[in-house]
């Protein structure tokens, strides 16, 4: 039986919508099932992997950085790339023009730079493609 591959296009910037969490859960579940995954991050989604993100304390609750355990999307992306480093494989491509517009150059290791042409190619090679648009 041919290997399964799922391509997902993301557009939402981090910390704005629950769709990002759902998308990352789908990626994680697919990898756990041995399914290869391509992610094409477009528009604000290129910021998901930005290395400069930092967890913070919560002055309202009076908690420290350690107590708050603030999750960052860059850490989610990094850990998913770690899970999908060989077989199954996770390929994460950031749209280059979107990166340049946002200055989102410094990203976690393993994230590639590409263009919508890469997304077209990924979709053609996949079992299925899911586009998660902004509202």
């Amino acid at each position, binding site marked *: 039986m041919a290997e399964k591959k*799922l391509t997902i296009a993301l557009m939402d910037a981090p910390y704005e919508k629950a*769709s990002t969490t759902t998308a990352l859960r*789908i990626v994680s579940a697919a990898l*756990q099932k041995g399914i290869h995954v391509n992610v094409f991050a477009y528009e604000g989604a290129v910021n998901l992997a930005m290395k400069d993100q930092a967890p913070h304390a919560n002055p309202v609750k009076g908690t420290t950085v350690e107590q708050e355990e603030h999750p960052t999307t860059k850490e989610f992306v990094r850990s998913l790339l770690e899970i999908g480093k060989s077989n199954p494989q996770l390929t994460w491509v950031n749209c280059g023009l979107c990166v340049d517009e946002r200055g989102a150059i410094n990203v976690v290791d393993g994230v590639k730079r590409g263009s919508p042409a890469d997304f077209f190619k990924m979709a053609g090679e996949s079992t299925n493609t899911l586009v998660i648009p902004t509202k």
Partner: protein
Amino acid sequence: MSNYVFIESRDPFDSPDTSFLAETAASLKKRGNDVVVFLVQNGVLAMRKQARKAHLPQLLESGVTVMADDFSLRERGIQFDECRANVRIAPIEQLVDFLVQENTKAIWH
């Protein structure tokens, strides 16, 4: 005949266009396709029996398979006994299984 997976993420009370998704899913089912509507995020608010304005009865009557993400339900404190009958509660892994079926079209809303 094709498989269709609609992923409904929107609250039916906030987004009137959720009825359009329900009508589309029901129409595709009527034409002989296999159709699944998988509720995630605020889409699961339609699961509650008390949610009278939700479109789920229409979907269920049409024979569409309706499932709801267990994580989204837990996040919103919606208990199993609050939910409508005939709607299955499922993990996200179930959605992945639908997505990688051959000849399946996936639509996020």
